[in-house]
């Protein structure tokens, strides 16, 4: 539950790189002048050169053995800088799904993902929120039909990993398969949406898309067996990103309180604000402990981190949400202007809330896993 020497070095090199290459102003630039891919491709190329695109993979697939604690350290920096990259969709979910499926795609496309020449997007959510058990997108007799509502990095992906129902008489998470669909396949329509946080997602329609058996990733009808584990791990990585953002906000707020004067004193000397900051710090460290527990559980080979993932997501949501609200409030008038960066974190936090399940979803799941 503590970063080792290599992981600390990794974190500080990523931090230096992002400070240099992708400070929060880079997000503003992207927001105000969006690229077709939805991210800065040369930034991603440089991150790939630093090795982040293989970080969660086994050494056989190009990983460096930083483990999930190492990934967490990287995600924290992503969160601190609000960096827009395909790492989450294409690597943390995409590459991990390919590796977990452990079939011909591992040799055919995994190297391209690691090389950054191919980027994946996971197409799961339908309707308003994450609910894989309600998947209605159907693959029947070689034809895929359906619509995905919230495909992260959809605008920049070369391929979609589509969760689809392949056994028509099933419900819930039984009878699902994972299908690799190239973006340019006939019948695929991608509708890009610029989200409030300067990132993007897409609504993707699959209309009579032809699919052959080599496009299945992993065993047909039983995708949930390996997808769920990958999503739990990705949820922990996302929580790490969120807490990175929360920590950055706390530090910026403390700096502001130590700088700004009112009624002839630093506003940081007001006890009511001090206590609120102290409580935020406690909440942050509590959530951080759950994230570290989860990430190190993966590194120790624990197979089932479902409960830890849900636990971490809920606390990360509560923490980032509260921290961003308090940061706006404590920055006073400046906090509600776009001149300072606080509002960008505020918006990012609400987007993160919806990725891979909101607070209600994970609270319900935690309770069910605990048996009450």
């Amino acid at each position, binding site marked *: 539950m503590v970063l080792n020497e290599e992981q600390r070095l990794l974190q500080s090199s990523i931090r230096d790189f992002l400070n240099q290459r992708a400070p929060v102003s880079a997000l503003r630039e992207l927001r105000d002048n969006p690229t077709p891919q939805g991210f800065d491709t040369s930034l991603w190329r440089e991150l790939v050169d630093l090795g982040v695109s293989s970080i969660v993979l086994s050494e056989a697939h190009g990983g460096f053995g930083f483990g999930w604690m190492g990934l967490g350290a990287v995600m924290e920096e992503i969160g601190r800088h609000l960096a827009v990259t395909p790492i989450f969709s294409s690597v943390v979910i995409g590459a991990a799904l390919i590796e977990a499926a452990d079939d011909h795609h591992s040799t055919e496309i995994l190297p391209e993902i690691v090389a950054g020449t191919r980027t994946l997007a996971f197409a799961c959510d339908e309707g308003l929120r994450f609910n894989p058990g309600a998947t209605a997108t159907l693959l029947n007799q070689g034809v895929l039909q359906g619509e995905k509502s919230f495909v992260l990095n959809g605008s920049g992906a070369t391929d979609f990993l589509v969760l689809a129902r392949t056994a028509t008489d099933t419900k819930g998470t039984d009878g699902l398969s994972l299908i690799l669909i190239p973006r340019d396949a006939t019948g695929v329509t991608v509708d890009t949406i610029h989200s409030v946080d300067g990132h993007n997602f897409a609504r993707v329609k699959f209309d009579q898309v032809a699919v052959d058996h080599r496009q299945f990733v992993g065993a047909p009808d039983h995708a949930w067996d390996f997808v769920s584990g990958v999503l739990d791990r990705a949820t922990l990585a996302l929580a790490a990103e969120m807490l990175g953002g929360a920590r950055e906000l706390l530090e910026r707020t403390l700096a502001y309180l130590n700088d700004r004067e009112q009624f002839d004193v630093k506003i940081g000397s007001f006890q009511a604000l001090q206590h609120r900051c102290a409580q935020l710090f406690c909440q942050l460290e509590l959530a951080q402990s759950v994230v570290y527990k989860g990430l190190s559980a993966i590194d120790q080979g624990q197979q089932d981190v479902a409960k830890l993932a849900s636990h971490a997501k809920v606390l990360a949501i509560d923490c980032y949400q509260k921290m961003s609200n308090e940061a706006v409030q404590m920055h*006073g008038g400046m906090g509600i*202007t776009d001149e300072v960066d606080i509002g960008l974190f505020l918006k990012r936090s609400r987007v993160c809330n919806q990725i891979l399940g909101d607070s209600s979803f994970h*609270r319900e799941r935690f309770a069910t896993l605990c048996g009450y």
Partner: protein
Amino acid sequence: MSPIDEFRQQTRAWLEENCPASQRRPVVKEEQIWAGRDRVFATPDAKLWFERMRDKGWTAPSWPTEYGGGGLSRDEEKVLEQEMARLHCRPPLYDLGLWMLGPALLVHGNEAQKQEHISKIVRGDIRWAQGYSEPAAGSDLASLKTRAEDMGDHFLVNGTKIWTTQADKADWIFALVRTDASGTKHEGISFILIDMRTAGVSTTPIELISGESEFCQTFFDDVKVPKENIVGGLNNGWAVAKELLKHERKLMATMESIIQREDESLVELATQYIGMDESGKLNDSSIRSRITDQLMTAEALEYLNERLFFQHRSKQVDPGLPLTVKYLGTNAMQQKDELLLQILGNHGLSWQEQSHTPREHNIVQNWAYNKAHTIAGGTSEIQLNIIAKRALGLPA
């Protein structure tokens, strides 16, 4: 029938007769009727509704008729509000002059000032902006630096004001300026009225986290202001400002209750976006529980306002009670916004108009915009300080 019941009956009849159907739906930002020299109406109905209300003096129902107001008693005004609420009538006029300056002028203005400004406010001819805050002052309003120098036959104003609501569209501004720097912070401040067309006045919009630019920074660069534009006497601006801040807080409360009424029905939205199980409960038990929290707070706030009204009427005002309204109201509003946003799910993550419905658009933008409410008009922290000292008697 008692006179008040009679008034209610007449008012109801008049509103039903005169308020166009299109003006009985929740107002969207684009269709608000703002005062001003260059006043524009989004629709002919809006113009009609405004003019009919203006002509009765019901843009300012309780102001004296001699200045164009409606001359209603407090009870009658309440009846009018209730009847407008019943029909969901939109407010006929939006203006800071109406909400803030007018009430202060009626107390502190001299006769010439009232004659000059009040009826224009009632008629919506002038749009007013507020010039209180300054970039370095924040909650410590009295540390303001904008100064008005006495040049004999006029004042020369230099400095800058921030958070001037839509100052780029305003015709006049009421501002606090320093006219004497020798005393304590609160002394030597004057309350002054400035025509925005005067040479040397300029504005820059401030972009907000909601993507909008409702506020400006306003600059005064050697601006000449006639000496008769001081309200309430030289160096007496702090007293006028306090009077006005009272109205600002009341205004915030009114705005909120307007918003409460006109805003989304949580239950309806949740039913639509989340759905119910066969026993008639929302499918998401966390959100269901948070809706209970929210409704209980929002409805309790309505009762609190009602209680305040009855206290006023029976002249038994509990002095601490009005102090709670802004703190509670703005918090409740923000809590509701967060809840609405969660209910929208991934439809609450963009404010691109084409990617979702106008209703969704409104919810998301309000969510961000309303973060201002616990800061503007006295931060929540200042409200709590005031409650602790004034209502609870805790030591300074």
